[in-house]
């Protein structure tokens, strides 16, 4: 590895600088070398003379823009717009700008020229021999820096030979003197040289925007609102300066004592933090309590677990959620108690469920007068003082300085008052308005804009600029319009903005990198790829199983039987990394997006649709490139994995199934129309056996994982059906079929194998996904609930946790168990991407939830960027032992694994994107749910998870919601559970409530009759209750949820109960291989009443089946008549098979065939026996008179079926209670009750007669 040490520079200069040192109060002389060179490329695609690899400046740009430092810092938001391309960032300008910037802004600035999608370049003019000047000093005066910008512009113009228009910006006029000094500017402040259309211009920013961007409203509007906001800021500063100290205090006095305190200077804060007087931390505010801030101090060497409470706007002193602030802790006698117990703190079961609670004090609804709002905000501290309770007070502090403002976009709309004003007098020239941010934690924002007319009734994006000391609200500026309030698209867009998800389309340059695939010129796999990939097209039957209507098929599965009896099970993942080359524009786009965001009815893809829905997607019937993981397993030996192969491949998916369809196939049901698979019956049988193998394989892997301590978590996902106008018309929890688990398990297995592989190859840079153990204190609430129910929850390890959850299942009703499971899920920490080499803490890269040593994301490269990275790593890891590649390929794959520094940034970014997209999706679901509830109130089953003094917190498992239910309103009236519709719909509080009293006892809450003291209602932890959920609309914010408790007799509750019961019946007696432990015979105990119900239900279904079968039978006989007796026989042989198929479909665990009847229909007895043996459905037994002893013999079987049988044996190892032979079982289950026996016999007789062919019984 010899690197060439070169000397490319031409000259060397020394620059002296003086640096002031704040700490030691001294001046430092810094002498730096400057090496000058001429090999710096200009970065333009037009240039022929520079040696450059990939010029970024577009050849077809209307002009190239050279910014100066002033316009760069002042209007950075404008340059961040995606339509601004072809900008040349000079290193001297950037350096100058950075001096006035925070770290965060610097990162943004850097992305302006490092992000190739922006088609801008960075030009190092300080080291370029033709543009270098001795004065390239950070402290250069305005005139000098201006000269430099002009000089560079001149060089560019000459260099490109006038083939491009160059625009250089100059700072806004500060004085006349600078204009004289300017090398090239004339009196008008602008200059043009050159002729025709290609010229060199020096303009000020506003003339530039006016001349070049007048056609683009988003640029010019943003620019003008920025100008306005800057002007205002300057004005405010002047006023403040001119007014003098006395005046300021007078002004403050004029507004009462509510003015904010001045922020301390940065130096002072640093000094005080060092002395331990201040704490520094990020300011957090809970959504439900906008006035209660918390800070978790991050000072070094401090116990940072203790939160500092900052109540009220006054103490918060202009801090916004997310800011990095410095806090001073108040004296302990001023400490206050928060209404909401801090999440991390111990359970402060505060008595302070105060009146404001339900009202949301700072919920700035449009009804509120703005000044009132501000007034009431500032008064809150007083009221807080009134209810000061010393024993519950927590350390309280005040914000004394803001170290770093959070930078983000807010969605807002105009305040109602302003809107009214505007609609009354349209001609007004007022430019100052208040707007209400959607985020309830953010106060109203003053907006200074000229576009007010357009903002009426709209949602728009704003940014907060500053919050002056004498102002009650922060000031911001308008950025862009989203759309009318209440429109679903607008609301979704608002959600995206609030979560920081960009919705910009793919840049044209990146789209040009896409392969061509048109009708006349379809994309085909290049010859080169055919030769160097493993070809699975003919050898493996491949199918994909996905949610219905999904277009981006990431994964496909295959099974192949090897001649030596082993199996090859393959997971094939779309080879996205083949199309998305490292470092390409497409790669950058995908990285910036990080993940596809799925919202209800819409999604924002990470890759352009041609890739995600076509070329990468493993659609059926076409050859596709894939990266495969193939395991060789031994079916005889519990599917032990003998070998694994990773590598690039070509697959041809034969079937594109969806979960329900695959489930139906594996259950052997008759496929409803539209669900059929191509290839006829044989193909179906083959597919079924494939799927069964996959099912068994994944069952075994899952058991293995569970034995290692995997925790089964539940997360209910909602599914909405929407009307044409996108409004939700129904909502339901997504159904999880066993097939979902089967596929998921295979993906988990593939991920963990890939994770292990890349970890072995790249122990320091492998991208893994880890899941840290939950914080023990997050179980606090849960443990209480468990105690109330008499369970113990062992949280010492994941295995212990999983076991205690399973114990719960055994002994209880599913609603409570589900609630527990959901609560445990909530207590979990989030899984995150990490770099293997960077994890030094004890938990390392272990995945707690899945109980896997190494785990990564590999299986969804179409929708997750992390998977693309992992693909590249895997391919680099496989390079040595996979197909030989050419030497040129080798050099390119060296870069497949990015350097750790870069990787670290990417991982941070991906984690952040992942979180925000998850949050956005959840919020989107919430919005839809609330909109649905707004129209249709729903009664739902809920579980009490916490007792408060005046109410309870309930958990609604179906929607994964935690809501507060009040039993006493603010006036002290008791709210009784609603028994009928009348008071629920009106929302009125019961009149006779004063008859009742609320009594809180240890661990429970009671409603007593006030006169007699008799207890009417009792609320205990983990009790089930019925609640009605509704939502109220709100103009400025999302709809708000209202909850009301229902009595069990309430009609809505009853209806809901019935519906649930019905659903449960539908899911009755699931197939044997189902993965839920509910269904494992013998393990699940049901009450006696339940059992009766089930037997009844089964009987009904059997009757129905028998009737259906009779019809089928008759039909087949007719067919048979036409073909003669021999075929009739065959037909009937087939029909026995079919009968068992029917039963499998009906999820009947065992089927008993009546020998007598079968034999009497003309078949030889042992022929039938053989047949039955070969059919081998879930459990076929022979129903025979007890006198005839007979056993199922294994006869000559077709290999396929023989295999199936073996498979079942393996797979029934754990479930094989039903394998006990038959007739005796029938009698034993009937018990000794002779009358029941007789009854049963009669019933069977009847059935037999009715069906006339078969009699059936089931276990």
């Amino acid at each position, binding site marked *: 590895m010899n690197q060439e040490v070169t000397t490319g520079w031409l000259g060397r200069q020394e620059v002296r600088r003086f640096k002031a040192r704040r700490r030691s109060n001294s001046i430092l002389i810094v002498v730096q070398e400057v*090496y000058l060179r001429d090999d710096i490329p200009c970065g333009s695609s037009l240039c022929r003379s520079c040696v450059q690899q990939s010029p970024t400046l577009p050849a077809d740009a209307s002009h190239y823009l050279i910014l100066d430092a002033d316009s760069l810092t002042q209007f950075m938001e404008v340059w961040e717009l995606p339509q601004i391309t072809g900008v040349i960032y000079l290193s001297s300008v950037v350096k100058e700008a950075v001096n006035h910037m925070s770290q965060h802004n610097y990162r943004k600035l850097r992305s302006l020229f490092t992000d190739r999608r922006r088609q801008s370049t960075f030009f190092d003019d300080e080291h370029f021999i033709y543009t270098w000047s001795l004065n390239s000093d950070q402290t250069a005066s305005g005139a000098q820096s201006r000269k430099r910008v002009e000089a560079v512009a001149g060089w560019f113009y000459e260099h490109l030979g006038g083939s491009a228009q160059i625009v250089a910006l100059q700072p806004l006029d500060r004085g006349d003197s600078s204009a004289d000094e300017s090398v090239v500017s004339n009196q008008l402040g602008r200059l043009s040289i050159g002729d025709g259309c290609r010229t060199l211009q020096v303009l000020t920013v506003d003339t530039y925007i006016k001349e070049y961007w007048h056609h683009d409203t988003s640029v010019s509007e943003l620019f003008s609102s920025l100008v306005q906001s800057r002007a205002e800021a300057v004005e405010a500063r002047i006023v403040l300066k001119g007014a003098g100290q006395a005046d300021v205090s007078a002004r403050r006095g004029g507004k009462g004592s509510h003015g904010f305190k001045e922020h301390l200077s940065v130096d002072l804060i640093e000094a005080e933090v060092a002395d331990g007087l201040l704490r520094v931390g990020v300011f957090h505010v809970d959504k439900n309590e906008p006035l209660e801030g918390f800070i978790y101090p991050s000072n070094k060497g401090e116990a940072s677990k203790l939160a500092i409470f900052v109540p009220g706007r006054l103490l918060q002193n202009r801090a916004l959620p997310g800011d990095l602030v410095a806090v001073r802790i108040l004296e302990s006698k001023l400490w206050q108690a928060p209404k909401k117990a801090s999440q991390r703190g111990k359970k402060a079961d505060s008595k302070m469920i105060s009146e404001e609670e339900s009202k949301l004090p700072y919920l700035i609804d449009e009804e509120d007068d703005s000044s009132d709002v501000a007034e009431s905000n500032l008064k809150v501290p007083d009221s807080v003082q009134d209810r000061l309770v010393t024993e519950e007070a927590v350390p309280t502090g005040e914000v004394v300085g803001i170290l770093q403002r959070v930078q983000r976009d807010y969605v807002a709309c105009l305040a109602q008052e302003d809107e009214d004003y505007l609609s009354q007098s349209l001609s007004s020239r007022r430019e100052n308005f208040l707007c209400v941010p959607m985020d309830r934690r953010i106060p109203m924002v003053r907006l200074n804009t000229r576009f007010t007319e357009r903002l009426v009734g709209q949602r728009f994006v704003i940014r907060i600029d500053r919050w002056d000391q004498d102002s009650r609200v922060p000031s911001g500026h308008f950025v862009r319009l989203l759309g009318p309030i209440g429109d679903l698209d607008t609301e979704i867009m608002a959600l995206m903005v609030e979560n920081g998800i960009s919705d910009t389309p793919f840049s044209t340059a990146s789209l040009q990198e896409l392969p061509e695939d048109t009708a006349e010129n379809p994309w085909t796999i290049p010859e080169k790829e055919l030769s160097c990939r493993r070809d699975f097209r003919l050898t493996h039957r491949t199918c994909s199983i996905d949610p219905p209507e999904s277009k981006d098929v990431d994964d496909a599965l295959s099974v192949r039987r090897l001649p030596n009896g082993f199996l090859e099970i393959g997971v094939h993942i779309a080879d996205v990394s083949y199309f998305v080359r490292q470092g390409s524009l497409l790669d950058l786009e995908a990285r910036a997006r990080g993940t596809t965001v799925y919202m209800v009815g819409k999604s924002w893809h990470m890759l352009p649709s041609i890739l995600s829905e076509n070329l990468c997607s493993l659609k059926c019937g076409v050859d596709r490139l894939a990266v495969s993981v193939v395991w060789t397993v031994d079916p005889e030996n519990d599917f032990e994995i003998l070998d694994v192969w990773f590598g690039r491949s070509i697959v041809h998916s034969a079937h594109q199934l969806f979960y329900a369809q695959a489930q139906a196939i594996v259950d052997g049901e008759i496929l409803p129309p539209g669900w059929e698979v191509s290839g006829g019956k044989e193909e179906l049988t083959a597919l079924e056996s494939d799927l069964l193998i996959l099912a068994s394989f994944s069952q075994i892997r899952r058991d293995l994982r569970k034995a290692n301590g995997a925790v089964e978590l539940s997360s209910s996902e909602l599914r909405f059906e929407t009307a044409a106008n996108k409004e939700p018309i129904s909502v339901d929890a997504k159904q999880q079929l066993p097939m979902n688990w089967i596929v998921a398990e295979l993906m988990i297995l593939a991920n963990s194998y890939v994770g292990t592989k890349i970890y072995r190859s790249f122990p320091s840079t492998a991208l893994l996904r880890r899941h840290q153990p939950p914080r023990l204190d997050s179980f606090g609430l849960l443990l209480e609930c468990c105690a109330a129910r008499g369970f113990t929850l062992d949280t010492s390890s994941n295995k212990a946790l999983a076991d205690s959850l399973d114990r719960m299942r055994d002994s209880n009703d599913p609603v409570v168990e589900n609630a527990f499971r959901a609560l445990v899920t909530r207590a979990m920490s989030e899984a995150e991407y990490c770099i293997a080499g960077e994890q030094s803490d004890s938990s390392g890269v272990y995945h707690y939830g899945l109980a896997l040593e190494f785990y990564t994301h590999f299986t969804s490269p179409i929708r997750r960027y992390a998977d693309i990275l992992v693909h590249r790593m895997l391919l680099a890891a496989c390079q040595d032992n996979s197909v030989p590649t050419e030497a040129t390929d080798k050099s390119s794959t060296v870069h497949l694994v990015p350097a750790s520094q870069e990787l670290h940034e990417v991982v941070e970014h991906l984690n952040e994107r992942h979180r925000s997209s998850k949050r956005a999706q959840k919020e989107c679901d919430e919005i839809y749910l609330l909109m649905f509830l707004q129209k249709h109130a729903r009664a739902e089953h809920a579980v009490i998870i916490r007792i408060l003094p005046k109410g309870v917190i309930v958990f609604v498992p179906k929607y994964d919601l935690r809501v507060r239910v009040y039993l006493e309103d603010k006036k002290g009236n008791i709210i009784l559970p609603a028994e009928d519709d009348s008071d629920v719909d009106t929302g009125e509080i019961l009149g006779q409530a004063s008859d009742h009293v609320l009594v809180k006892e240890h661990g429970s809450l009671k409603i007593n009759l006030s006169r007699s003291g008799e207890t009417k209602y009792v609320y205990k932890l983990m009790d089930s209750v019925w609640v009605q959920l509704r939502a109220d609309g709100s103009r400025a914010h999302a709809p708000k949820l209202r909850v009301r408790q229902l009595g069990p007799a309430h009609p809505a509750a009853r209806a809901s109960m019935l519906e649930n019961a019905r659903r449960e019946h539908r899911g009755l007696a699931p197939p044997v291989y189902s993965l839920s432990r509910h269904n494992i015979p013998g393990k699940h105990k049901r009450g006696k009443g339940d059992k009766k119900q089930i037997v009844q239900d089964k009987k009904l279904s059997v009757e129905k089946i028998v009737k259906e079968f009779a019809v089928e039978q008759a039909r087949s006989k007719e067919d048979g008549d036409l073909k003669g007796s021999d075929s009739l026989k065959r037909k009937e042989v087939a029909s026995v098979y079919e009968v068992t198929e029917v039963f499998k479909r009906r999820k009947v665990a065992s089927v008993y065939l009546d020998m007598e009847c079968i034999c009497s229909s003309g078949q030889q007895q042992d022929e039938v026996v053989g047949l039955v043996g070969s059919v081998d459905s879930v459990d076929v037994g022979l129903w025979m008179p007890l006198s005839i002893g007979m056993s199922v013999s294994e006869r000559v079987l077709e290999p396929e079926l023989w295999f199936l049988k073996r498979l079942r044996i393996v797979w029934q190892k754990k479930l094989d209670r039903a394998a006990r032979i038959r007739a005796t079982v029938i009698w034993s289950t009937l018990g000794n009750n002779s009358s029941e026996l007789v009854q049963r016999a009669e019933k069977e007789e009847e059935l037999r007669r009715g069906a006339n062919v078969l009699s059936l019984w089931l276990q």
Partner: protein
Amino acid sequence: MDFLSPEGLRLDGRRALELRQLQAEVGVVEKADGSATFEMGNTKVIAVVYGPREVQNRNQQQHDQALVRCEYSMASFSTGDRRRRGKGDRRATELSLVIRQTMEAAILTNLLPRSQIDIFVQVLQADGGTRACCINAATLALADAGIPMRDIIVSCAAGYLNSTPILDLNYLEDSGGGPDLTVALFPKLNKVSLLQMDSKIPIDVFEKVMSLASEGARTVAQFIKETLMENTTQLALAKGPPKF
């Protein structure tokens, strides 16, 4: 902090694989047996050699080889802030030792038994890479003094910043927190005599950085040879044609 611009230029305008400007002068102190200054960019070091001469402290005398002593110091004006750095501080002691050992390995000490060689190295101006610069200056001074050596010994440093191996760090880059690896080697023998690094670094990266530093050292060797050649030519010219 960015040590490399998107263009691939370092803060001072060099590329990652470029050395700073090298300058050297031999025979700067007349009184000494050998002396030289060596400059790598703004780092400037003077080395002065006395010897071989009689051992001053008798009981240190070694009967089979020469005693090599080295004294390293930094001029108080060598850095911007006028911090007093005596020869007694830990850093100076360590560096003295390092240079002595490196030079001892180069000198054919067994040819000069019962004698002493003193090497004085002083940093006149510090701007990163002083260690390497000191060794280079000492080599020149030893060569000037005519002390027998196995091979000239040359040194160069390399670091790893912004995921890029970087040759010959200056002070700004040195204080960037990345690893700084100094290599001293015999260019002809192709043997490494000194390898020093005080931080952690992944093994694959280490190899890259190491090979870069060695490559840099070879370039320095080329320069030193040229300097010595020029010096010798001048001496020869001054002396006039040989008289027989």
